[in-house]
């Protein structure tokens, strides 16, 4: 079932809308607290997931 791939898109919601998961200082990256770089990282992860889902659910004739 190709439409099942859309379920992957639940991940960004779970990853970013539950602040207690990431509301802390460490580990830092380039001096940036975890709270900040974690959420910035989700922007990229979400873009990648969207790219994957768009490709996997492509219909014939989509140009």
């Amino acid at each position, binding site marked *: 079932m190709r439409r099942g791939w859309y379920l992957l898109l639940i991940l960004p919601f779970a990853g970013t*809308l539950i*602040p207690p998961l990431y509301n802390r200082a460490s580990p830092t990256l380039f*001096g940036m607290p975890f709270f900040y770089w974690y959420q*910035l990282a989700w922007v*990229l992860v*979400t*873009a990648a997931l969207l790219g994957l889902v768009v490709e996997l659910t492509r219909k014939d004739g*989509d140009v």
Partner: protein
Amino acid sequence: MSSSAAILAIAVLAVTAMGFFAARWGGANLDNLEQWALGGRSFGTIVSWFLLGGDLYTAYTFIAVPALVYGIGALGFFAVPYATVAYPIALIVLARFWNVARRRGYVTTADFVRDRYGDRTLEVAIAATGVVAAMPYIALQLIGMRAVFAQFGTLGAGGSLPALTVAFVLLGAYTYTSGLRAPAMIAFVKDTLIYVAVIAAVVVIPARLGGWAHIFAVSQARLAQRLHPAAIYLLPSQYFTYATMAFGSALSLFIYPHAITSVLAARSRAVIRRNAALLPVYSLLLGLLALLGYCAVAAGIAVKDANSVVPLLFVRYFPDWFAGVADAAVVIGALVPAAVMCIGAANLFASNVFREFCPERSAVETLVAKLLTLAIAGFALLFIFFVPVPYAIDFQLLGGALMLQIFPAFVLGLWTRWFQPKALLLGWACGLAASCAMAYASGFAPNYTVRAFGGSLTGFIALYGLIVNLLVSTFATLLLRALRLGASIDSTTAGDFA
């Protein structure tokens, strides 16, 4: 005139010329509404990427998000999860809407609602919501521009109004002439300048301030000493606020008329789907800009109006000429969305209010839309002259809460005809009333504290309003169905959505 002011003036004149020139793009007949308002529905992946990016990430975003982080710390960073989860929603909702809109020639969300529910009152309610929500949003673009103009000593805060007026009159003129093609063409310049300015800012400014670790440490200490203390992490009591602001804003982003207008200008469903995956690049930019708010805190910039922190950082850390480039990015960044917002609001009026008198699309309808674009731009300008800035921002927040109230009729309507139109109308009215009451009770803050069962939850008003709306729509539908009332005609077919 300083070199930054000269560069800004040249950039604005250059994009004005582009705006007029855009009328020749594609050699279309601009008396046709779909040509004038939607660029002939011909934009491919790249043009759409620039246009949507230029349209959704407004100057106000670039000014206000850093200002918010500067002012309230971690809570202001909600814009990043907002600009993240908006895209999965966009992929699912917009691809489906694009299909039915293309199949049936819709220019607005209210066109769809009219066909889907066969209810004239609901159509006008949806259209009016869009127009009302767009107005303060356009006004905020002007506030973003004014924050830049006010930096120039020769102009000053009062003297920035003539510059603002000139820029907006030019905008009205080329939008009237070229329609959506003007902001689409200018978006290339805007987005390029924004990327250059932001990348330069996040490379240069943190390094000059001693690196991110130092910036966050200083910000933490300084925010705690403020009159209204803030922090670089959320308090547990802010978790719910943070999540509801992000989620509620994400739900409303793509139902604004300016977003819909740009989406319907896409050539194919695949263009929309691809852009859902490509547009988050702008969100990364937004996140980096948000952190400039902390750079301003660490740099010891103390201002009354937080909206000026970004232009002040440009002035302090960039050479004069490059500050001009960055300022031009913000000003052109305001012109692009303002033009699309004017077109989107005008479309709603021309297609869903005026069309009552004229059932077919016609050159007259296009002329009405063009004239309305001028009227809306003029009205937004007056708004800035007569409404103090803090109130303008309050209206924008309220506008967002109002916008979300079309969600059940429009977005849920893409999948189900279960709701009765009269029930949706009642739900819409109750959602609007509840949002306004909550906004008033909280002194026009974006959040409202609900107290029940001995606890309290502070959440985003727009989302609370939507919950009221959904509950009322559901119960009213059940009631109407039980009474066998309120049947209406659905002119769409299942095939229109596929």
